[in-house]
Each structure stands twice: as C-alpha cells, then as structure tokens.
C-alpha cells in the first residue's frame, strides 16, 4: 500500500454527518472511472447514516469559523456551502479552483490537517476545527516554495488553472513520499487532471522538488 496516495482521511468524521462525497456514494452515482481514480478509502454507509441522525444544522445561514493558513476567519454560511466556495467567495482565497465541483479533477485541492482534500467535496461547516492550508500560504515573503519553483522550472503549467490544485496535491504526496519513484508519482497524484497536458513537466517537477528537499 506504500505507493497509494494518502489523500483522504478515512477516520475524519463529518460533523454534519453527510459530506457531499458520501452523499454521492450513497446515491450510487460516484462510479469513478476505473483506471485513473486514486484509491480513496470510503466511510461506510452505515457509519454515515448513524452520524446523520445527530447534529442537523440549517437550512438557513449559520455562523462558521474556519482556521485558514493559521488565521480564524468568520462568515455566515448556509450549511450546504462547500469549503471551496467559502474560501473563494467569502474569503477571496481564489487559488483553489472550481472545475468539476464533484470530487474528480482536483483543481480545488487544499490541505485539511496536512492531508490533501478536494475542497469541493467538503462542507465548510465540516471543515471547522481543522487546520486548513491553501496554496496562498505556500510561498512566503514573495519567495516560492521549492515545489512551486520546480513547477516553474519544468514548465509544469500552461493555462495554470489546475496548477494550484496540483501543487497542493504534489505537496501532500511529497510529504508522505520524500523519495518518490516514477511509478509512485503516476499513482500518487492521479487524483488531479490537467487539460492543457502538463504531466511531463509535473513528473519532472516532482523529481526536482524531492531532490531539492534532500539537498536542503
């Protein structure tokens, strides 16, 4: 199992009891494409149903506090608002992008307690109490993180719309695989899609970033 991505935390219990991803699973429409999907551990249907019996919120707006990049941010949000939409439309953190809006393409990837998640598939109210890290915090004082620099050096981006999500997915992958093989890379960041076709650059960027990290 070493080469599998640790993308979704199976132990994380959604507070509202029903994340969008789980909802999709229950309704049986989340038949992910067989050859590209990263293996994402599933919360069992029974577990979700048990959680759903408690702690209902909404449907009106409720106060929400999110810890984003080390700061507490407050907003009034309907419980159905996703973490992605909260970040983008409430807090102007527009690095994470809305593309597929149903947990397939990875353009919305952020970190929740250090693990990569699809922020389109996490409700904002569920993200409370967790450390949320977005692409905006990765570069410090105008200096790119070595992984971001590796993206630039290897031209791992064209239009760049998928890039922030890819960088965050790659960051989480490298945190867990400091010495990645090419095979691990092919599986480990397969939860993100790029339409311009920058995968050759992304592979090279991951290799460069791993090397830089070792040298540092």
């Amino acid at each position, binding site marked *: 199992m070493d080469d599998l991505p640790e993308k979704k935390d199976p132990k994380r219990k959604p507070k509202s009891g029903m994340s969008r991803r789980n909802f999709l699973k229950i309704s049986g429409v989340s038949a992910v494409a067989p050859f590209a999907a990263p293996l994402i551990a599933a919360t069992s249907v029974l577990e979700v149903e048990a959680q759903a019996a408690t702690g209902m919120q909404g449907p009106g707006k409720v106060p929400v506090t999110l810890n984003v990049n080390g700061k507490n941010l407050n907003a009034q949000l309907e419980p159905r608002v996703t973490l992605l939409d909260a970040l983008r439309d409430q807090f102007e953190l527009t690095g994470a992008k809305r593309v597929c809006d149903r947990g397939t393409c990875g353009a919305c990837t952020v970190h929740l307690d250090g693990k990569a998640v699809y922020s389109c598939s996490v409700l904002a109210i569920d993200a409370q109490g967790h450390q949320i890290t977005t692409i905006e915090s990765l570069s410090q004082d105008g200096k790119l993180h070595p992984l*971001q620099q590796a993206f630039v050096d290897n031209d791992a981006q064209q*239009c760049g719309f998928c890039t922030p999500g890819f960088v965050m997915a790659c960051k989480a992958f490298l945190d867990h695989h400091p010495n990645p093989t090419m095979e691990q890379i092919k599986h480990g960041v*397969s939860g993100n899609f790029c*339409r311009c076709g920058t995968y050759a650059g992304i592979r090279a960027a991951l290799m460069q970033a791993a090397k830089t990290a070792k040298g540092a």
Partner: protein
Amino acid sequence: MADNERDYSWPAPEKRSLIGKRLNRVDGPLKAAGKAKYTYDVHPPGMLFGKGVRSPYAHAKVASIDTSAAEKMPGVKAIHIIQGPGSEIQWAGDYVVEVAAVDEPTARDAVRAIKVEYQPLPHFLDDFTEPKNLPEDNGPLSPRDIFNMLDDDDPESTKRAVSAIQQRGIKFQVTPQLVERMKSNEVPEEVIKALQSAPMKEEQKTDSPYQKEAETVKGDPDAAFKQAEVISEGVYGCPVITHCCMESHGSIAEWTDDNHLMVHISTQNISASAPQYFQALSIPAGNVHIHQDHIGGGFGSKFGVDRWDIAAANASKKAGGKPVRHMLERDAELEMAGSRPSFYGRVKVGAKKDGTLVAWESHTWGTGGPGSAGAPQVPYVVNVPAIRRQYVNVRTHTGPARAWRAPSHPQACLITMGALEDLAAKLQMDPVDFLLKNIELTGTRANVYSEELKIASELMGWKQKWRPRGQNGSGPVKRGLGVSIHTWGGRGHSSDCALTLHPDSSVDIKMGTQDLGTGTRTAILMVAADSLGIPMEQIQLNIGDNQYPPSGPSGGSTTIGGVSASTRRASVDALHALFEKIAPALGAQPGDLEAANGKIQVKGNPAKSMSWKNACARLGAQPIQVVGKNPGPGNLIDSGVGGAMMADVSVDTETGIVKMNKMVCVQDCGLVISMKTAESQCYGAMIMGIASTLYEEKIMDPQTGRMVNPTMDFYRLAGIGDVGDLVVHMMTGKGYDERGPIGLGEPPTVSPMASISNAVANAIGVRVPFMPITPDRVLAALNQGANHAAV
C-alpha cells in the same frame, strides 16, 4: 532611411541573445503561487451570482414561463427572459431564463422556482449510422460545393462546375470580398463569371437531417482502381468530443453607468469581444471595456460572447448595474460550451505492389450539431493522384460545434492515416517506408516530412521495435507501433504592438492580445528584449485589455507569428528613433549603431558605446512611442508546417486495455521563439490526443436527447499515469529558422489519434475502427477478427 527599407529581419543565429532559448515562462511564478487572477476569480464588491434555467429537451418550443415565485424570493435581484414563449430550443441544456441573486445558493433556488412549460418536438441525434441512398442533391450550390467540384489538375472540372452553377443556381451572395477570396484561391475566371451571373435560389426547406455536399472527383478514380494491385477497404471514425476547459466559459458584466459596460470574460478574443456586445445590446463597442488577465483554457471554444454572457449583462442592467457573474457549471460547460464535430468514413484505397498509391475513394459524414461539421478533407496531406470523395453533413439536436485545436485536421488525419496503415499492412510494408515511398504526394513539404520521419524513427527506435501486423508476441499483451504525419497553416494574425521607451530607461508594451497558456507573454518579452538588447525584466508588458491596441483572436495558431512580428517591428522602430537621438554623441550615423548587452554601440567597435540608461536619459522629457504592426514591412513570418508523430502501445488482448508506452513528436514551426513553452505545446498536444483516442466521447441519450456524461468522472481526461513517456523534438536551424515564427498550437494535436490507433492495429492485428479505443471496442474488434464492422 525610409521605413520600408529598414531592416526588421530576425537576428542571425549568433546575434540572438534570447530567441530560441529555453527560458521559464514569465507568468509561471504567479500561476504556481496561486495568485494569477482568472475571470472566475474576479469578485467586485456587490457582485451578484447569475444562473440560468436550462431546457431539459433537445428540441422543443417554449410554451410558457412563470417567474412569479422566484421574483418573490429574498435575495433575487434580477430575472431576465433569454428565450421567451414561442422560441424553439435546438439542443438540451440551452438557456431560457437568467437569474441573478445575492449568493449562489439563492440563485440556485430561484432557478428551481421558475416554471417553464415546453412543447416537446422530435429530436434527431444519430450521427453514427451511415447516411445511405440519399437522393442526388439538385438544389442551389454553397461555396463549399463549388470548391469541392474544382480540381487544379483537371480542366474538365471547371466546365463541370460552370454547368452546375448555371443549372442549379447558388444559395449565397457573390460579394466583392468573396470574389477577392476566390481569386486568391485560384478559382478560375470562368467560374467566377458564372457565379456573378448565376441565379440566386432559396434552399428547399427539408426535414432531412442530411446535407449531401457536391462530390469531388480528381483524375479518373475508376480507371486508377482498375490499375491498383492491392486495395484496402475499411471504416474509421471518431465521435463528438468536448473542449472541457478547466475554467468554464463565462463572464462578469457590470454597467458602470447607463451607457458603459465593464466585462471580465474568459476569452481567446480580447480585441474583438466588444463589437459582439454591440450586436446584442446596441451599446457602442467603444463603451464596452473588456478585461482578462489569465484564461483557464480555451482550445478554440472561447472566441464568441455567448448567450449567457449577454444574459449576465442584461441581468446586471435590471439589477441597477451591479456586477453579475455567470460562469458555467461543469454540466453546462460539457453540454453546450463547445464540441468537436464527429467524422466517420468508409474508405477504399489502392496501390501498386511496390506501394505506389494510385486511388482513393471515401464516403464520409459527421455532425457539428445544428450547423455544419466543417467537412474534413480526405485524403489528408497525402494527395493521392485519383480521388472520389463524398461528404454528408448530419444536422443533430446537440450543442453546436466550435473550433477545436486544428479544426477538421485530427479527424481527417485519423481516417487517412488509418486507411494508409491498413493498406501498408496488406502490402506487408513497414508504414514508415510506405509513407516515404509516397512522400512526393505531400507536395512542397516532402523534404520536411522525410527528415522528420527519420528523426522520429531514431527517437522511437522504430527499426528495432517495429514488427509486421499480427506478429507482436505470443502472450496476451501485444505491443505495437504507429505513425502519422500532419500539417497546418499558422500564419501570424494582425497585431499592433504599442511600445514606449521612457527617459528613465524603462520600457512598456501594450497589446490587446491574450496568453492562453501557450507562452504568449514570454514570447513577446523574449522578442522585445532580444531586439532591444536589454533584460526581459526591464520591460513591462500589458496585455488582456481592449483599451490596448488590437491583436487578433488567439486561434488557428496565429498568435505567435502576429505578436512576434509586431513586437519585432516596434522594437526596431523604437531603437531607430533612439539611435537618431544619440548618434551624434557617439560620433556615428544612426545606421552604424546596434543594441546589445544593455548598451548602444557602434557596429564593429563595441568600445564606442553608451549604456541603455544613459541613452534613454538623452530623450529628455519626451518618451519614444511607436506602434509596430503585423502585417508590416519586411518578411518576418510564413505559413505551413509539417510534423510527424509515432506511438508505442501495449494492448492486453484479454482485458482490451490499451497502455501508452511512448510517444514521439517531431515538429516544425519555423523559427522557435521560446523553446520551453514551444515544447510544452507539443507535450500537451500529445496528452490531449491520448485522451481523445482512448477516453473522450460526448455520449448522447437517443431517448431523452441529453448528454449522458456531462461530468468529469464520466467524461474522462487522461491522467498523469496514462500517458507513457513523451519525447519532443523541434526542427530548428537552416531551412526552418529563416521562415520566421509559424504557429504551433494546432499542428501537434493532429496526429495523436491516427498514430495511436495505428499502433493498436499493429499490436493486435485488427483495426479498432472507432474512437475512443475503449476496452470493449478492442475486444469487439478482436472478436470480429477483421475490419468489416457494419456501420
């Protein structure tokens, strides 16, 4: 010196400080940091969220619309009817009513609260079944019909065309512009005369979805087939696919006063978007401000201002001018914001035993939705001496086609190269040898293709790896190789470059162009800095706004030639003005000076020089302002490129799964300005092509008339693990550089389907006729055992 004598030509290889180098893209850091702002990221204060009611029917009349419940909802600020009662809907998902609300959930609820009654009409979606036994079309001719009838090599074709024009009449106006265009395309004088006196006729209205185009005949195909010693017949094709831009289509429209509209829009067409608002809203184009910093993909689908953009502007007006953002959700994006036409064909092709091609016959058809599918021209690139071809356009109730990287070429290439590979297999010839045997049929670029095929063969290890069809191992996993060649025009579009040299030594450039991620910003700065002899960082580049001098839309690989040429001319003109100012101080004539390494120096005597800073300081209070244009003086650009592609695949004959091992792309694009971003275009083209070969299909449900897979889990793109090893080789140096930059966005996207599907056929011994090559289709082809699939 008069302007037309000034030397604008590209610097000689030894004089190039930046052009052709492998530099990082200039907006790379901003994008990697997540700080690049796209249209979807723009969020002006007070912005409303636009959403639309969309038709569930593929073909229907709007009967009634009741917005009363939505109007009463708190937070709903505007409701605008886009297509009122009586309107006829032509594809599922089309917008009927626009809503703008304070937040997105409210807008969603309001859309649900609007009641639209439809009167459903029968729809037609089947583009796959071969249109057979269609009656001869004797109706008036279209321009393309006439083009189809003409054959440069056959004087009889002129007579046939003239007689057809006189008998059938025409269905278009013969404008002076059209005559000009025909003359430049060498349409014979007799034909133009016949057109000018031809009767204009109304097309008979028909319920048939099929439009049969005039047949093209070149040479004597019947006689040629009799002479052929080997004939191969087959069917080939690819379905409609979508653009699937990561950033969906859409805009933010805001009336800043009663007469002025501010628009942020995701577009490939900054400079020509405002007039489209004029057409829809009667607002003077000069009062529409268009802006875009970055675009999340276009691929040919973002030239127009769309129905939803106009709806957002109308909703903004109703909401007192507040900005309204309408970005498409993914399902709308996939259903109707762009698709590539399908193309299917039954082909017969014949050759002599030594591989000499003699005859081609094809019956092809495809759909581009309610309009035209563009009629891809086959045979592609390889101009077989005797040809008969027939094309039928199939009109369907699906979202309309838009330009998709290299319109018509990938489809034409698939069918041509597939048929040629099958013929080569029947001749028991290596397909590379077969192409080389017939390479003169490619015309003026025969030498380019020969050179490219040689390089690609080496990079692929073709000679060592290639095995004849069906001899690719005894185990269940078969390995195969495929090859294809392609072309594209790519002449630079019109472009104005406003360049200012300031007395403080800074330089700024303003251009109404856009960077699709192709590296346009990087290329402009490389040209300007190389020409001015200063670092790129010293130049401030502003693009993406229609307040800047206009540049053409970024489509058809026309941007690099356009912006490079206008920037080069602006730089040379600005330098010339600077030289005139400082020549006396250096005791030289302006013509004796050159700019290099941050200095202005006397040619051949670099010791006599002045720093860039000091030279600019001599301008006093007056900056130098010039506008460089394309087209313009000097021969800076050209058109027409060649490329070769090879694919290496493994096919599991038990599961039907195709795995990409390796692809090689060898591409000519004239003078390469920015090597790194040019190579990225080729990598990206191969990857996009792998997806359209193995995964992509816009699947329509014949019962409901709706797209079955408008999500990214069911509309599959290639992932990072799906693409194998990728090798890119750009043709450079003598024979290429002196042509100047030629566009690159399209050409490498042409050959992937052809080369990969040929590799699959080589691996498993039978043709998988239709894209995408999914496991079920591989298994079906293996079961069938030969290429006689009944279409």
